[in-house]
């Protein structure tokens, strides 16, 4: 027992020895002593030498309160020679911080004067890192938990190996320069300027919001992305969006490394609010939407009528349209194929769609991009020249060439881009639906398209016979069940109730009672039950679609249901023909347009 006690006590003593040694013999003390020794050698006068001899190692710190939260920078404890011009040739940590005219440092009588004095700015305001630390590991931010490792110098151990080497270089510090130097095209921060231009020219702004710059809503808000994330994450999300978040729908842009770097630096500079702005300035930016900055950043292409098509082609390729769309060999894998656009759409539709995608397709996720009218016209002109290739002969080949991208290999409506389309492509394996519709209607859907949805009108490419051939292929390959004779139903051609405010009111009451669970109170197809239903309930505010459908079809869908979907035959639930008429009138009434549309007259 006593021996064990003695050993244990000795053990405790040894540990205390180690602890005390670590505590009183710091690395930084050795650095400072080395500096004092060197400085004594370099000293020219005796007083200088005496002053150095009197100095003892101590923690040096700069407290900076001018830039956001108070910073305590103890970096000069180790980097003690950073302001001593005699140590230019020494190795870190005993090295003079470089002087640079680009940074505003001036030379007077051979003596350098810093523009950014350490006593005023500290270190971390430019370099990041952890100012409070005295241990290189922690103060340089090698610790994986530290959010701001030294910008462009320190890469953390867990960063992706193929990205880490690209994240070194002092140019990354421009992100911090931009916290104060917010001038448009500030010469000291070329990468920030370039990144901001790329943010617009690569159409990032279409999906992402940055306060004072853009209003995209599809992707995450990037206003303070530089504060939230480290370089490694920013680079990763741009270079390989799916690597960090498997569910990301962000397209993979094929950017050169230097472009990615510029974007990363620009994003790193987005830290919510920066030191240079006052409340009033922020408010002004809010009022104008940052128009000044945006105008300075976007560089519109001057369109010459003679070269319109060529310029349009260049625009389509340069502005990253194929990051989402398919065009020839390029395929972003998110949005429809543009190869046949000249046959499927007309100029008027394209122009309207460019200016406001939701005007032609209410549920489109395509952002409204800020191009000039001329640019839109040039792009439209180019797209109208795209005629694709002649349709192949047999049904299977046609399906693969034209339909598969949306309707899927198995015809189940789960094509590669289906998840980005709203409404979803039709599930062609649902025989209940396919066999309850007359062939003429299905052929019409193929040849005339479905208005307000991504289903284009293939009529200029496929003849009636070809459409039937594709349908035959779909019928045998996917639907499988043979078509049956349809029972004749009693369906009026027009709504049995005349349009009137009373009828609309009755229809609304019925709608809220019977339909809102799935179609939603607003009729937008987003009712509580819609989450569990496939195909999704129809968006009845999709005016383009509703206008393309006549009363007869609306009546049939409501009163006899839509087989193969969750829409039940309401005749079984006690709706009279007049009730259905009221509902039709209500649905028409919520799709009023100022003018035009085949049913406008009825509504007026």
């Amino acid at each position, binding site marked *: *027992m*006593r021996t*064990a*006690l003695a050993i*244990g*006590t000795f*053990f*405790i003593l040894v*540990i*205390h020895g*180690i*602890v005390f040694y670590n*505590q009183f013999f710091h690395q930084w003390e050795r650095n400072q002593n080395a500096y004092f020794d060197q400085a004594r050698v370099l000293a020219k006068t005796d007083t200088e030498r005496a002053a150095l001899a009197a100095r003892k190692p101590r*923690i040096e710190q700069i407290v900076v309160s001018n830039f956001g*939260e108070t910073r*305590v920078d*103890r970096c000069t404890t180790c980097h003690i020679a950073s302001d001593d011009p005699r140590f230019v040739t020494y190795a870190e940590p005993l090295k003079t911080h470089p002087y640079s005219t680009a940074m505003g440092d001036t030379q007077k009588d051979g003596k350098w004067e810093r523009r950014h004095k350490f006593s005023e700015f500290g270190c971390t305001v430019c370099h990041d890192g*952890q100012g*409070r*630390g*005295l*241990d290189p590991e*922690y*103060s340089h931010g090698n610790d994986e*938990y*530290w*959010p701001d490792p030294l910008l462009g110098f320190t890469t953390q151990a867990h960063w992706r190996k193929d990205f880490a080497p690209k994240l070194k270089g002092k140019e990354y510090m421009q992100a911090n320069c931009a916290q104060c130097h917010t001038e448009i095209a500030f010469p000291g921060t070329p990468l920030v300027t370039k990144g901001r231009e790329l943010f617009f020219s690569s159409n990032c702004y279409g999906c992402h919001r940055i306060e004072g710059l853009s209003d995209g809503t599809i992707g995450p808000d990037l206003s303070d992305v530089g504060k*939230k994330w480290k370089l490694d994450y920013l680079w990763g999300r741009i270079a390989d969006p799916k690597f960090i978040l498997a569910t990301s729908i962000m397209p993979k842009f094929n950017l050169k490394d230097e472009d990615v770097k510029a974007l990363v630096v620009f994003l790193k500079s987005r830290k919510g609010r920066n030191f240079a702005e006052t409340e009033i300035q922020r408010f002004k930016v809010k009022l104008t939407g940052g128009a000044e900055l945006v105008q300075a950043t976007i560089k519109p292409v001057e369109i010459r009528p003679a070269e319109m098509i060529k310029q349009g082609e260049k625009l389509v390729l340069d502005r990253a349209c194929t990051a989402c769309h398919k065009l020839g060999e390029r395929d972003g894998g998110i949005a429809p194929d543009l190869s046949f656009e000249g046959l499927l759409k007309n100029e008027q539709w394209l122009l309207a769609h460019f200016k406001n995608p939701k005007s032609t397709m209410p549920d489109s996720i395509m952002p409204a991009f800020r191009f000039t009218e001329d640019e839109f016209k040039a792009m439209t002109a180019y797209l109208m020249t795209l005629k694709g290739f002649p349709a192949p002969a047999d049904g299977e080949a046609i399906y693969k060439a034209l339909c598969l991208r949306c309707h899927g290999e198995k015809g189940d409506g789960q094509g590669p881009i289906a998840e980005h389309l709203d409404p979803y492509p039709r599930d062609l394996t649902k025989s209940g639906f396919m066999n309850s519709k007359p062939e003429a209607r299905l052929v019409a859907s193929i040849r005339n398209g479905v208005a307000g949805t991504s289903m284009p009108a293939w009529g200029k490419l496929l003849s009636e016979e070809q459409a039937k051939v594709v349908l035959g292929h779909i019928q045998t390959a996917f639907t499988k069940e043979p078509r049956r004779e349809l029972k004749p139903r009693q369906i009026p051609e027009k709504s049995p109730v005349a349009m009137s405010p009373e009828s609309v009111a009755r229809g609304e009451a019925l709608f809220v009672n019977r339909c809102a669970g799935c179609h939603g109170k607003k009729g937008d197809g987003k009712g509580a039950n819609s989450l569990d239903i496939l195909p999704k309930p129809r968006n009845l505010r999709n005016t383009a679609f509703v206008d393309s459908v006549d009363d007869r079809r609306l009546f049939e869908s409501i009163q006899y249901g839509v087989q193969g979907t969750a829409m039940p035959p309401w005749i079984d639930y006690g709706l009279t023909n007049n009730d259905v008429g009221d509902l039709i009138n209500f649905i028409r009434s919520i799709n009023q347009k100022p003018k035009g549309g085949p049913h406008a007259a009825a509504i007026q």
Partner: protein
Amino acid sequence: MSPATPPKSPFLATLMDLPKNVWRSIFRNPLPSNDLERSATSFTNFFLHIHPVKVHKHSLRPTYTFGLGLMSFFLFVILIVTGILLMFYYVPSTTQAYDRMLDLRGTVAFGTLLRNMHRWSAHGMVAVVFLHLCRVFLTGSYKKPREFNWVVGVILFLLTLFMSFTGYLLPWDQLAFWAITVGTAIAGYAPIVGKDMQFLLMGGTSVGQEALLRFYVLHVAVLPAILTLMIAIHFWRIRKDGGLSRPDDADPKPSLEAMENAVAPKASVPEPKKVYGFQGLVRGPLTKVGQVPDNTVFSWPNLFLAELFTFVVTLSAILVLSLLFNAPLEEPVNALHPPNPAKAPWYFLGLQEMVSYSAFWGGIGVPTIFVLLLLAAPYLDRGPKGVGKWFSRDRLLANTIFITFVVANIIFVIIGTFFRGANWAFVTPW
């Protein structure tokens, strides 16, 4: 000195004797060399008089107690000392707390060591207190007359958990913030009072400045005071309940000879006029009068050496741990960016794992039943047999139920710690 020295002046003599007199006045006894002095040393020293003068040999067996109770106490002492030192540097403010942690880690003398010691002692205390509880249960030591002390012990265990939990938030990093968010959410699953309890604990609907302040006050003032009081009661009751438990056959049976003319004891109705000596009120087998044979040894040095040894082992272990492993400090709090998965402290991961199956039963139902069973154990299990032996056959049922609960919880903690990844999906750690 030669005997021929001239007589010293009385003042000089006083001065020469001063150190000796000061020493004597503090420590009344010389280092003991006989039994009387051993008794006196234990009896007259403030710190030693908590101990009995003589202690049963069975209580000194290392494999009976493994020193777990003492270890818990010493860890508590280490926690108090390091905790007070840390308090000098800590500010319970959401804007300052994390910076103070950075200062402790980088700049404050011995800051890292203090933080490490406090952290590992806290984790250690939770583990050791729980092991101590297992020891007491598995040796049947909660039985009469130690029922109430067992209840005090269970309360001490719960207080220890709460103590560790409240301290978890103080570094104000991501680990702390989300662990407490998850932990208080578990409390919110309790029926009726759950949401109010959660609100009271956090001082709001989410973890923020109010929560930090509340946890700080609980951690440094309220809980330590309660814990200290309960520990005092716990120790007091050990003495009053007759020392540590031991089996019946640990004592030699005194052979009692029938005394002639012995008066048959009367019915035990105390006579009103009777004046009792204090000895008569002290319960338990340690009170003995005369030369009854027993199995005790003097506490000095047997017990005290054992205690010192336990202390040295505990301190060494904590020091080594603190030297080898740094207490974690993650990113500063970002309330908008939860880690996936957000995990509670390890000792609550069993609960969190169970909560992932059923919020009410995992977080409240099962733990409450377990604690109530623990508290009620000495009042439900009244059989006098099996005291003082590990895994006694007489207590097969009680031990089996207990071990089942414990093993189940340990399995859940292990699953929760190592086998749960993003979205609480099952992952293999290798």
